[in-house]
């Protein structure tokens, strides 16, 4: 069973692809790292899954509507006077909506804050938190969202080691509960240590499979070598959709499609 299926997916801005012809499935319960240089399309792919960026071509099929998404640079107005508890409580929007009272669920909110190490911070305005504390508060909101599919865009950028370790433990907990987690990451040690599978992206998919098999020097070198340039005069893509398509046009490595197909079939 798959949590997400990408079918010939191309995402981009102004007709220029940022993610190019991605095929494959993310199995339910997978803990998948998205790896690639800046501009590789990692954020775009996550935005595509939550519907912030529309597909230029192809489709994304998700099994669940309840997606929890932590963006890279949250558009959060931290000067707005709400408390840490209020911020976390937003995670209950889906079940509670605009009117249901949260009074009797205060303990649940406090438990979520305790799980991220923010006990005693519930009444602090969000503007007074440090970067790490704020990220912990956002993880408390993710906990309360109780989603089966969790997307994290570079969740540990600018976060100290101890906070990172605490939050990684939370992510492993989600994985153990059978939730599907996809995280865009830069720290390859972290990926090797905690993420069973990896998708290396450099606009087009370079490799997808078990982390140990995928994170090899040749694959990473190829990802890095792919130009980040935005070609204003780029020709219209003639890539044909379908399994018999001529991948040579894009120089695709057929090995990756085998490895991720095998991965998608895993339970």
């Amino acid at each position: 069973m798959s949590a997400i299926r990408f079918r010939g997916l191309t995402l981009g801005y102004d007709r220029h692809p940022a993610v190019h012809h991605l095929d494959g499935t993310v199995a339910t319960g997978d803990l998948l790292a998205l790896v690639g240089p800046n501009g590789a399309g990692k954020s775009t792919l996550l935005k595509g899954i939550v519907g912030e960026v529309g597909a230029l071509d192809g489709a994304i099929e998700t099994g669940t509507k309840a997606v929890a998404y932590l963006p890279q640079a949250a558009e959060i107005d931290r000067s707005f006077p709400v408390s840490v508890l209020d911020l976390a409580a937003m995670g209950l929007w889906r079940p509670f909506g605009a009117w249901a009272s949260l009074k009797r669920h205060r303990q649940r909110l406090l438990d979520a804050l305790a799980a991220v190490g923010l006990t005693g911070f519930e009444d602090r305005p969000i503007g007074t938190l440090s970067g790490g504390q704020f990220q912990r508060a956002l993880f408390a909101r993710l906990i309360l969202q109780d989603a089966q599919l969790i997307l994290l865009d570079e969740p540990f950028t600018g976060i100290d080691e101890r906070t990172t370790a605490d939050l990684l433990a939370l992510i492993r907990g989600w994985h153990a509960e059978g939730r599907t987690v996809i995280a865009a990451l830069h720290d390859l040690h972290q990926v090797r240590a905690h993420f069973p599978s990896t998708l290396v992206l450099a606009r087009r998919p370079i490799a997808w499979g078990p982390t140990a098999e995928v994170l090899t020097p040749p694959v990473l070198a190829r990802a890095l070598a792919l130009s980040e340039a935005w070609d204003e005069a780029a020709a219209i893509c003639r890539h044909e959709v379908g399994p018999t398509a001529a991948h040579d046009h894009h120089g695709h490595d057929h090995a990756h499609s085998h490895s991720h197909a095998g991965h998608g079939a895993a339970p």
Partner: protein
Amino acid sequence: MTLADLPNLLVGPFVEFGFMRRALAGCLALSLSAPPLGVFLMLRRMSLMSEAMSHAILPGAAAGFLVAGLSLPAMTLGGLVAGLAVALAAGFVTRSTVLKEDASLAAFYLISLAGGVFLVSLRGSQIDLLHILFGTVLALDDDALTLLGGISSLTLVALAALYRPLVIECVDPLFLRTVGRVGGPVHSAFLALVVINLVGGFQALGTLLAVGLMLLPAIAARFWAADLSGLIPVSMLISMLASVTGLLVSYHAGIRLPTGPAIVLAAGALYLVSMLIGPRGGLLRRLVRRRHLEA
């Protein structure tokens, strides 16, 4: 003047004159609904945008005036239509062109203001123009009072219903988009409430100053309260205080002091005082360096 005269000075005008009581009732109704909206506008850094929208009401009100003279329903309807149209048009231009919202609003409101003054001048006199620009708070009739009371009630009920999604939309619009589809409708409903209140304020204070009782009390409240549960009631109180003060000052003033501007000036004075002595970030508090805490 002795202390014994004080009750007479403060209450006398309202006891003696019906038009003062009506003005007071209208301003108090406006004080309950406009300042909470102002608090959200201020926190969303949309203060100048509401100013622009208040000018956008003018051509609609002027069109109503052209058709029906100084008639409340015609001018209210015209103002509502024009205000909502400009809010929608500015949003549309922002989404579909390179302009940011402030730039597109500025363009629209300048066109509206010039167009409105032009429309009024087509038929009306200087006095009519002054009425539309600065309001006629001392001449509120039953219909106008009903309108103000209705707007006030509607706004409070709507704000209560929209409160939670509105706060989430202010803090983290992207989050609201990922968990549901209410973000857009909530934002539109909020803008509609702002327009409705500006149209109401226009009856009392005119198109140029309608935004005065919306924004000044909200901005002043920032110096007294930290969170929404404090900001909203404080802004209402400041607005009521400004209304009473403005009405009394303009009544007692030896010179002819127009009432609408007097109310907004009173709100302005309360803002300046708050800025000086307000406990949250007021100037005097900044001058006194208090001992820092241990942790």
